[in-house]
């Protein structure tokens, strides 16, 4: 039984198959990376899996439970969490509040007792806050916990998104370019965090342009071009595949080692 299984997934926009017949599966504690040139459909694939777009064909299962076309919030309740390529941080809230929002699925939906400020709410707030602080500490954001997210640096925001995703205690974590725009030190930090999270048993699905990062941490790598799977295998297998080299050169990219901002 795989953690996340994707079978024949596809969607089209105006006649173009943005994602076409993609199949793969991931295991707990493993890092599964998806790479490919710009416009290959990586983010679209993420949006399909996480329920932001509605799948046209194929299926997604989590631990053999059919979750195709479920809403993002329903998927979150089933243990999926994700980050976004273009920073979807709650900019007007403090860093701590951002992470506390991440714990939403574990909080009781009791609007009335929230309004009345019953002791249960205070207890819940305390627990969520403690957990969120622990995560902020883990991601070296403890000293900016009370700051408004809008005032944080880019690298901090990238880590904040990961902290928020982790706050839901996910079984499977989707990371969309977590190191994009980060300097080498920050990239190394994120690298370390990903490995650490995976080691705690979370299955990780990673989209990343930084080849050094991908090749260094991944258990398996899937190459996507024009919405289709080109090859799937271990980092070594993929790096040595002539098809991959050709695909990348074909799109005018200088080399596999290229990093993108």
């Amino acid at each position, binding site marked *: 039984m795989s953690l996340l299984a994707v079978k024949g997934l596809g969607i089209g926009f105006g006649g173009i198959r943005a994602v076409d017949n993609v199949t793969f599966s991931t295991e707990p504690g493993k890092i599964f990376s998806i790479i490919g040139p710009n416009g290959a459909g990586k*983010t679209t694939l993420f*949006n399909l899996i996480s329920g*932001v777009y509605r799948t046209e064909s194929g299926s997604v299962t989590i631990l053999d439970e059919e979750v195709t076309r479920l809403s993002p919030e329903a998927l979150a309740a089933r243990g999926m969490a994700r980050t*976004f*390529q*273009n920073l*979807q941080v709650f900019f007007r809230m403090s860093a701590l509040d951002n992470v506390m929002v991440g714990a939403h699925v574990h909080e009781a939906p009791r609007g009335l007792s929230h309004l009345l400020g019953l002791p249960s709410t205070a207890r819940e707030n305390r627990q969520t806050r403690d957990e969120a602080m622990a995560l902020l500490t883990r991601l070296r954001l403890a000293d900016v916990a009370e700051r408004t997210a809008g005032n944080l640096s880019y690298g901090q925001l990238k880590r904040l998104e990961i902290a928020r995703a982790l706050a839901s205690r996910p079984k499977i974590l989707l990371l969309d370019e977590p190191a994009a725009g980060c300097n080498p030190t920050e990239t190394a930090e994120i690298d370390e965090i990903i490995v650490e999270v995976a080691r705690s048993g979370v299955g990780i699905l990673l989209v990343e342009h930084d080849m050094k990062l991908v090749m260094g941490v991944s258990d398996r790598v899937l190459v996507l071009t024009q919405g289709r799977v080109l090859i799937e295998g271990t980092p070594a297998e993929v790096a040595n595949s002539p098809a991959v080299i050709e695909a990348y050169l074909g799109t005018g990219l200088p080399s596999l080692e290229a990093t993108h901002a």
Partner: protein
Amino acid sequence: MLAQFLQFTMSGLTVGAVYAVVGLGFTIIYNASGVLNFAQGEFVMIGGMVTVFAVAAGVPLPLAILLAIAVAAIVGIGLHRLAIEPARDASPVVLIIITIGGALVLRGIAQLVFDKQLHKLPGFSGDTPVNFLGASILPQALWVLGGTAIMVALVSLFFAKTMIGKAVLATAANRLAAQLVGVNTSVILAISFALSAAIGAIAGILVTPITFTHYEVGTMLALKGFAALVLGGLGNPMGAILGGLLLGLCEQLSAGYISSTYKDAFAFIVMIGVLLVRPSGLLGSKLAERV
């Protein structure tokens, strides 16, 4: 039966044409600057009132009309310079509140400069109704419909063919990029306010012989024009026109066939219904969230 239907329809189209033009005015400013200008109805008022008072002062009608359009355009530029431009980076809802303040100011000035009475203009081609398949139609209604059509055509041409029109579109698409290619975006925004004001004024002049004018007519028109704009799809000029005509038709057909007491209610129910089926309006493009 047909005569009755035609009568209701003509009534709806005439009423709707004003909503449509107000909606079009909204769209021009919205597209260029992202501001929803709730003082749009006041331009209609200025058009009507200035013409009425100029004619009363002995100015010939054609000259009075030109004067009214010019006054409205200047007021439009003034509104932009004095109220919108200083708050350029404010959030959309703050800008809306500013335009509501602007509407209050314009109404306040109108009540001082003019008066608080109702006024009318004579029909441009007399007030004798013409018979069309049993429905009786005022010649001025044809002026309103024709005028609206011509304005829509001219506005489309302006955007498609003239340098200034293209510059407005460029500014709307990307202000920074437009500046980089040498467009003076501040001037462009002023132009779009002036254009929008002029269009509103023309509408005000055309309908005054039918609907009369008054220093407070703007409030209701802004409300209906905004509804028309959203019904048609925000940002699409043709959508605003379609939305306005539909809203007018809805009101007058409900008044004729269902209940005159609740006609506005039916119009709003239809509108909410349309929005639930098409959340971006009739001609609005579907906005996908980029993540």
